[in-house]
């Protein structure tokens, strides 16, 4: 069969038709591309991952720590990246993933801490003077957030008792009240009335004097970053994380139980003690298990966050369901 060369088809006719087809496809493709891009950008703008900035800051200098770790068994410390990018610090943001970026320029020097109230030798420490009280020790503690997640953090710090001994508490002193800095020029979320600022926390004096209770100024051998409570924070490993108050400016010894921020906000949900306890649920969620950051699935939460042997004696005879 003879196949004729199709020179009878007019060239112009063919291109016209394909152009017509191409244009239709092109427009539809463009509409799809444009809308999906817009949806994608909208998703990116509204979902908080985009706000995450890797934390670096002033981590060059390291603190030589004396290794006196209370390592939690075979549990691995949480990564530096996770510890410094997932923070509850409502003065900066209520979005745990956004705190690092919001707190990036927080000024932590010069910094003074007033230790006052029912003490024989009240004193305003400047930070460097305060850090000289005791050599830094590394303490690897579990941190259990009341929200149901946890980390293992290698803190650097020294026992709060060392500081309290220096100011000599008077005999009437029964509680210690801690106050966080509230500086609206540096803390963007202070404008909101979410909580009653400044943030206040408190401990019973015997809890404050307990050897596990530390003032921390570093982690992973480096000075604290703002999102972790720089330059000085409390760490009470057997209590829910919010008790471990950040960026402290005042430590006041008092006679009566101080009014603490979360307790005042919702007294039936957050007790003054707030000891980690898998048997006492938060009214709205269970505290029996926790999600360890970096792990899949959930772990059982331990009584006193695994420090019962050391601290249970502080609460002997107390009904932990009443004094939660």
């Amino acid at each position, binding site marked *: 069969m003879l196949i004729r060369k199709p020179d009878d088809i007019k060239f112009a006719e063919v291109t016209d038709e394909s152009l017509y087809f191409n244009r239709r496809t092109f427009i539809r493709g463009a509409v799809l591309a444009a*809308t999906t891009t817009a949806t994608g950008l909208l998703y990116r703008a509204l979902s908080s991952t985009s706000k995450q900035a890797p934390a670096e800051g002033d981590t060059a200098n390291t603190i030589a720590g004396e290794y006196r770790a209370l390592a939690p068994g075979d549990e691995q410390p949480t990564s530096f990246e996770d510890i410094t990018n997932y923070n509850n610090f409502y003065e900066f943001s209520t979005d745990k993933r956004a705190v690092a970026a919001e707190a990036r320029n927080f000024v932590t020097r010069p910094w003074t801490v007033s230790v006052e109230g029912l003490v024989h030798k009240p004193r305003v420490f400047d930070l460097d003077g305060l850090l000289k009280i005791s050599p830094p020790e590394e303490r690897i503690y579990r941190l259990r957030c009341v929200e149901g997640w946890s980390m293992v953090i290698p803190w650097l710090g020294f026992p709060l008792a060392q500081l309290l001994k220096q100011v000599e508490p008077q005999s009437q002193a029964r509680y210690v009240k801690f106050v966080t800095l509230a500086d609206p020029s540096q803390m963007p979320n202070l404008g909101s009335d979410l909580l009653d600022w400044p943030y206040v926390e408190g401990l019973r004096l015997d809890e404050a004097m307990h050897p596990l209770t530390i003032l921390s100024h570093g982690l992973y051998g480096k000075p604290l970053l703002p999102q972790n409570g720089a330059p000085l924070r409390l760490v009470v490993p057997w209590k829910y994380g919010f008790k471990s108050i950040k960026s402290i400016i005042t430590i006041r010894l008092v006679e009566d139980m101080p009014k603490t921020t979360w307790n005042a906000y919702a007294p039936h949900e957050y007790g003054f003690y707030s000891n980690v306890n898998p048997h006492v649920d938060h009214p709205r969620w269970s505290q029996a298990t926790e999600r360890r950051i970096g792990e899949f699935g959930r772990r059982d939460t331990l009584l006193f966050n695994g420090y019962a042997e050391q601290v249970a004696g502080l609460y002997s005879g107390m009904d932990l369901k009443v004094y939660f």
Partner: protein
Amino acid sequence: MKDTRFARFVLLVNGIVPLVLLGWDAYHHRLGANPLEFITHTTGTLTLVFLLLSLTVTPLRKLLGLPWLIRFRRMLGVYAFFYGSLHLLTYVWFDKSFKIGAVPEDILKRPFIAVGMLGFLLLLPLAITSTNGMVKRLGGKRWGRLHRAAYLAALLGVIHYWMLVKADTRLPMAFGGVVGALLGYRLVAALIRRSRRLAPAPERGESV
């Protein structure tokens, strides 16, 4: 009525975009320190977003006079169900490790789980009756009445969200405000319709 086939295809593709990006971010470890929580929160938020979008269709088409917008409503609703199912899956998988036996206890213990579960159960019959065949079988009127449950599901979704937030309730409040406005519009519209039916027909030109 307008030919909306291509427009619906565009909506279909766009609805999956958040899931694709979520998967992409998860694959590249860009969901932060608590990726499981992030996936759970994101799928939950998307459920509410699509549910509210589906409920916005009716007021929008009436206010703008664009009746063909109705053609998008069912797909938005089905997407709400789709993301709701993923949200439930993350809970059963990440939180319960597929120990389904632990779920009833959890529902009793954690009221916000109970509320969320109820909201999802309400969406279930709506998703099942979302096909053309089911609309025909039920008849438009009955179908419409059944699908009013979407408002209740949205309300339960907002309450579920609001209950689990620690202090910053701004977002759940915003979602609640939208549900309130949409529900308010429908109620007012229904009242006006009823008063028109009961009262003698208003004079021509009199505005209601």
